[in-house]
């Protein structure tokens, strides 16, 4: 059974998560950017590569960790 589509995302919620590469092998992500009531919470994820160890888990692991929660 399928629920009708949820309403469109409003402009106010548009930037609730922001993610940017930092260097060649790391991505910094902020949940609740600009929202003091729901965050901000930073996450560091790594981009697997052949030069350096990872500063954080690959991004896919973060989504699965959220599933585990």
């Amino acid at each position, binding site marked *: 059974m399928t629920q009708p589509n949820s309403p469109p995302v409003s402009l106010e919620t548009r930037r*609730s998560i*922001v993610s940017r590469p930092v260097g060649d092998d790391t991505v910094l992500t902020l949940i609740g950017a600009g929202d003091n009531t729901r965050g901000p919470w930073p996450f560091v994820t790594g981009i697997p590569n052949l030069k350096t160890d990872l500063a954080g888990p*690959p991004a896919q*692991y973060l989504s699965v960790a959220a599933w585990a929660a």
Partner: protein
Amino acid sequence: MVGVAYRGGIPLEDIGVDFELEPIERAGSIGFGVREVVTLKGDLTEAQRVRLQRASRYCPVAQALTKGSMQIEDEVQWRSGEVTAIPASSGNLPDLEGTLPVIQPGTVHGSYLLDTKEYDADGVLEHEGEAKIYITTRNLTHTSRWTVMAGHSSPGLIPPPFPSAHAGWAASTATTLTSLLPLEDEQDARDIQVEVGLNMSGGRDLSQTSAAEGRIVHRSAVRRVVVPGTPRSMPVETVQAALQRDPITIAYLEGGILLDEQVVIG
């Protein structure tokens, strides 16, 4: 699952979950699959176990990753300032020369923290509580482990699961764009930014009701990607081709990453 158990009067005493991640081949991309084992503790009937298993399958994050239930509205903004919507249809998109990083096998273990439940003055469960998650995967020179917290607590304490999943999506998108877009130099990579806006309508009630009933809810999200250059130097079709190869985007649109699932009474 804790909320569904509470609402249904199910005597769930504790819960743990283990995922194994492994790379799998997907057309045009490098995908991944997961094997899930949920361990329940409590004096549960078979009907209660089945109800909780359904809740596990239909929680918002599981739906997003396994049911193809996300509706994504994409936009691209160039550093030169122009903004345009990215069409949903594929059309003839260019082949990209870059390669995505291989997703290494690993594990995700989640432990529920019983004493983080929050009750109101009348003793009614107000927040289901938190989970501590260990992520373990192969690194370049050794195996690493990271700890993540997520769950439902008083606003502001820890990130809820659904935004956390989208944080993974945003990070995955940034990784994909960095890997696949034709970038000139390091400054181009630094110019990349991914912004995600969520629709949290319905909240906990809708999430728990749909999970308990095994009902799919199509949730929407806006993703804006900021890329270097101009529409001429970085055509929208190139950006679209990269986004379509992002592993989490593929999971959101097509589902199917769940390779195996078990729910056991521990």
